[in-house]
């Protein structure tokens, strides 16, 4: 699974406790915690879900299978929230 690119009009900002995405079209703000921010940023660099999950395993004490499930769930959430370019 390869995450898509962010919608070009989205405003993304790294914060001290994660990241914030401002969606002016839907007038919505999304706060990503540190893990979600890491997944988002890696996704924007074009990394695959497998590579992102491996990075999570390196950083946190989490089993590989669980990391992969979580990454894929997050990527689905990003898409469902209309944060990715069509």
């Amino acid at each position, binding site marked *: 699974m390869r995450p898509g690119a962010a919608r070009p009009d989205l*405003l993304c*900002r*790294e*914060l*001290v*406790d994660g990241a*914030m995405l*401002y969606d*002016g079209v839907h*007038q919505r*703000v999304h*706060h990503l915690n540190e893990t979600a921010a890491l997944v988002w940023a890696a996704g924007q660099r074009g990394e695959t879900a497998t590579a992102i999950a491996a990075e999570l395993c390196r950083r946190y004490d989490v089993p590989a299978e669980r990391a992969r499930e979580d990454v894929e769930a997050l990527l689905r959430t990003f898409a469902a929230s209309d944060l990715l370019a069509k």
Partner: protein
Amino acid sequence: MSSGRESVHGLALGAVVDLPGPDPAAWTRWAEVAAAEDLEGLLYHRCRSAGLALPAEVDQRWGRAYRFTAARTLAALAELERLLAALAAAGIEALVLPGAALLPRYPDPGCRPMDDVDLLAAPGTAAAIPDLAASLGFASVPRHPTLLSGRGLVVDLHDDPLNSDRVSGRRMGGYLDPAEVWQARRSRRLEGLPVQVLGPEDEVLYTAAHAVRHSFRRFTWFLDLEGTLRADLDWDSLRQRARHTGLERVLLQAMRLLREPLGRDLPAPATAWLDTVPLTRWEGVLLRQAFRDRPAGSWGDFLWAGGIAGWGRRCWFLAGTCFPRPAVMLQVFPRLPAVLAPAAYLLRLGQLAWRAARQLVVLLRRY
């Protein structure tokens, strides 16, 4: 001043301070000061980036404030981008005044709350902006045709930086000429958005004058001022500009507070300036009161008046500031029918008397 207040100020300014430790009452005091001073977001950032653990309740409260500020700022900047693009398409330029203009001096958009964005229209263009903004969905606030409210953004539109057009008496205390200011403008990026901002000297003078006028109510104004003083400044130009605009005294007053009681090490030219141009006794007394009473207190206009040479000019300044023209008085009392505008002056007199009495009670209790 309580040690909690001092420490919170110190941490906000980036100094090394002792955190309260395990005492919940001390943390409660910190949280109260931080909330009253609108510093929760900045303190949250300072603690998180230094790896300092906060009690869960404080962490939650400051984190919420931090994210709220970040969200509001990003929304405001997105709307500002839309407005500036529309203005540019119509051939109108506008300059972003501090505080929004000073956002890049903070670690991120969660650290500096702002209620509105002050825009200075290019000379002779302000009249066209409200209609253009209305076409984008901005609505002007009743009786404030230059206060424009959009999606997540309130714009305070200026014809001249210090609003001397609205309150003419203010010119007695200094004047930033819009044409001169416009000529000295420069470019900056706010979260990636290219904007025009004041020149370095005007930015310092505006920031100091704004802080004095509003009695140093917000602590971030000290950070704003310190940031502008640490920028790449030509101090000779600043001194000349301060004298030329008549804003030297307000700048000295603001710098004095930064030096003491806040204990900041100012750049050497600022220290030399403070040492060679001492404050009057009157200014010193008012400055101490103003700092003690913040974030409440209404000493700003008196403080500003204290720096004006000559009693005539001083009184003209105070009269013009306390009793501006009828259209402005009706903004002060928005529920008063316009036909009763003269009554606004009586109401204003009562309002000022009430404030003075309240201040007197505070002083009597203190001494």
